[in-house]
């Protein structure tokens, strides 16, 4: 069985620092989502090892992961890259958010492709579109896994 077949359909994991943002995304998925459910944990808890990333992913098997990069941007970007390249991320969609894309890109020296989130409805629309897009990609990967 391929890794991509193991993900739980419609399950979104959110790694964020802000309870307000977690609540915003939760409301978004509840009211306007496509039947997704949300699990979350604090980014800082992953960094400190309070939550073990691999075990968390294996236990919940989310289809999609939303990572939020908060300050310190350089340090958290490095940690995000470590998580993104972990084998447990195989076959899962990824959405990246931050509160200041311009400064994040400046600091890391590349285009992060992150969505800037400051709490406006337009930000949430962008996140919803990204979730839809990444979910479709994960779904496609699962079908290939089933038939391939």
């Amino acid at each position, binding site marked *: 069985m391929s890794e991509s077949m193991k993900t739980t359909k419609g399950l979104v994991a959110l790694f964020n620092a802000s309870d307000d943002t977690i609540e915003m995304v939760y409301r978004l998925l509840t009211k306007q989502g496509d039947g997704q459910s949300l699990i979350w944990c604090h980014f800082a808890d992953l960094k400190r090892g309070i939550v073990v990333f691999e075990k968390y992913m294996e236990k919940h098997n989310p289809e999609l992961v939303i990572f939020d990069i908060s300050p*310190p941007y350089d340090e958290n970007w490095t940690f995000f890259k470590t998580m993104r390249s972990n084998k447990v991320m195989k076959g899962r969609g990824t959405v990246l958010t931050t509160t200041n894309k311009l*400064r994040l890109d400046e600091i890391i020296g590349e285009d992060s492709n992150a969505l800037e989130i400051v*709490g406006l409805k337009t930000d949430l629309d962008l996140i919803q579109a990204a979730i839809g897009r990444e979910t479709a990609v994960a779904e496609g990967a699962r079908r290939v896994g089933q038939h391939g």
Partner: protein
Amino acid sequence: MEFQPRISRFPPVVVLINANDDTVEMVKRMLDVKGICCLTSCHFADVKKGIINFSDFLAKHNPAVVIFDISPPYRENWRFFETMRDSLEMKSRGIVLTTTNKKRLDEIVGNNSDAIEIVGKPYDLQEISDAIENALLKVEASS
């Protein structure tokens, strides 16, 4: 004029109201080096939800300076910050304001927030340190 902590049983106390554990840790470390006591911190969302009573929190810790961080949703959290700032318990205390995106915050709240942008670089921390020292000097001068 540089702020010089007095030799006292009671060092100058600041409290942090923030959403981000990493930022709290960064600011606390910086304050330790400066000899400024960061007695405690609490999550902005916990104050908003009433899990922590803001008036009781201030009365208990009696900080000279309160550092508020405005995180998204900027409009909503700015309004709540204004409510806290204007409360009687904040009278004669200094305020330092931080955020991760000052440009967007100012656009959304429609004025200059006077917030310090913090992205985790040493120059942000220096700016916050200077602002805290200035706030402590003002509080000391007015007391």
